[in-house]
């Protein structure tokens, strides 16, 4: 049940990321000039008849964010009450802290008129929070608690971890591109000002160019990870399924990126590009965490003096309790 609820929170967060990206894509970030109130009203009593134009997106984002925040309070409390793993309790609290901080950052973006640094941090923390909810959903899943399927492959661990880090870096670049209005700094695709590299440079072109180069690097890294999974762990569906999904998502993501430029930043294409980026990151995280699953089993122990000598690992002990 806790696992299902964790999946609900993660799914709601995807919806929240979509709502947030629509705010940026429609340039509605400042259509509600005050925070935490909305045109002086309490957020929940702001009349729906006034949700017009850009307000629909901005106020909608605030309401969805508040809902996700409340869901996260329930999730963190639930984990605290029923999950015996201390690190899981901490992870639940961390998720709650992240969503609170995210709300404050969202408020700061409004109060300080969308400064790129704060807006980019807001986008980055959104991804971190989303990853945290996905990790919680994974850690509470029955598959995670079964240790027999854990693969011990240091090459895969290195590849998957690197890929996840690269995807996160690429998302940061994308966020910087969105919030510095550099999305069309290079207006053509696949060429750049008619050539393979831009024939002139400024800060926006450099950010945009970095994002395109980043897409290549990330794609190669994802491909390398997937090939490793397919070759070395073909029978392990807990790895092959997310690896295959990862490759499919990155193909969709590159297509959406290209269409964003070609459509001159169509609102929905642009927004789904952001959402798909988050899904790529989450899927890569799942592969990474599953590649590290075996290490969760053999983590060093700090036993209390009166603990039974047979127990090898505090984490193993906690996992076993959770399975029971």
């Amino acid at each position, binding site marked *: 049940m806790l696992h299902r609820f964790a999946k609900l929170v993660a799914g709601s967060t995807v919806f929240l990321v979509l709502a947030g990206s629509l705010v940026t894509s*429609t340039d509605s970030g400042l259509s509600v*000039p005050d925070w935490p109130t909305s045109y002086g009203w309490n957020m929940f009593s702001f009349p729906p008849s*006034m949700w017009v134009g850009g307000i*629909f997106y901005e106020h909608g984002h605030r309401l969805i964010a508040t809902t996700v925040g409340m869901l996260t309070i329930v999730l963190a409390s639930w984990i605290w009450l029923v999950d015996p793993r201390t690190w899981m309790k901490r992870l639940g609290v961390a998720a709650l802290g992240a969503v609170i901080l995210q709300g404050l950052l969202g408020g700061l973006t409004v109060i300080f008129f969308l400064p790129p640094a704060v807006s980019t941090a807001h986008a980055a923390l959104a991804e971190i929070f989303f990853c945290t909810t996905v990790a919680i959903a994974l850690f509470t899943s029955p598959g995670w608690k079964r240790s027999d399927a854990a693969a011990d492959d240091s090459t895969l661990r290195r590849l998957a971890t690197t890929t996840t880090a690269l995807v996160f870096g690429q998302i940061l670049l994308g966020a910087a591109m969105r919030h510095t209005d550099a999305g069309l700094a290079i207006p053509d695709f696949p060429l750049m000002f008619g050539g393979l590299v831009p024939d002139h440079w400024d800060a926006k072109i450099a950010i945009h160019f970095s994002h395109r180069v980043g897409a290549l690097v990330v794609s190669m890294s994802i491909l390398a990870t997937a090939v490793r999974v397919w070759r070395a762990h073909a029978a392990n569906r807990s790895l092959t399924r997310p690896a295959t999904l990862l490759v499919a998502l990155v193909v969709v993501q590159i297509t959406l990126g290209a269409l964003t430029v070609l459509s001159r930043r169509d609102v929905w294409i642009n927004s789904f590009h952001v959402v798909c980026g988050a899904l790529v990151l989450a899927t890569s995280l799942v592969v990474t965490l599953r590649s590290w699953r075996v290490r969760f089993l053999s983590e060093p122990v700090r036993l209390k003096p009166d603990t039974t000598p047979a127990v090898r690992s505090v984490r193993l002990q906690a996992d076993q309790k959770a399975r029971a």
Partner: protein
Amino acid sequence: MRLRNVWVTTISVMIAASLAACGGGGGNSVPPPPPGATPVDKATVGDINGTVVLEGAAPKNEPIKMSAEPYCQKVNTTPQFQETYTVGGDGKALGNVFVYVKDGLGNYIYDPPSGSATIDQKNCRYHPHVFGMRVGQTLEILNSDMTLHNIHATPKGNSEFNTGQPMQGMKTEHKFNTKEIMVPFKCDVHGWMNAYVGVLDHPYFATSDDGGKFSLKGVPPGTYTIEAWHERLGTQTASVTLGAKETKDVSFTFKAPAAPTN
């Protein structure tokens, strides 16, 4: 004790800054003139008149879709377009060009501005679209619509502000502390709404009308650089020497872009 002093100082500065930022809102507090400044001799002043024209075919203005806001759609029964190129009936006269004395003014004391500048949000458009005002002059921002607006100014030299006006008849006031050409206004609720204000430390500015005409009145004798600013076509300058009680004409010609850019 030292920490307490730091807190007291910090809070005092914040309160002082808040009071300064809130201002009074009322009259026009034009900054004091520089030392040695003399009043303009009204017996010698003249006028600079002129016309702004567009050379070539004016690009079509971008149509506005108001479907996101039923009220705006209801009050605008005819198709609406942006005001980027406000061209007269002859196809040449260019309106909404801000013309001002850019350089050459001496060390003068100017009369304080008479009354406030006003920008009205009516029928989901800004009125006027391009206008000028003085540093320290009060800008009255009105909402004449039965819907809500936010007025969001994005200056470079002055302080950015974003004010919500959820009710019809609401009025807020603002002052700019530094001269700036131009301060853009936009409504983030209704993405098509935009306007520009030129903020100057002297009274010699005007906006060309639908016939492309403008007039800078009461200018003291001297040699001036006059600049004309257009939101899409950029700026042009002209030099004018004005004798005592003279009236001079100056014209600006903007070239239309080869292809529609909006």
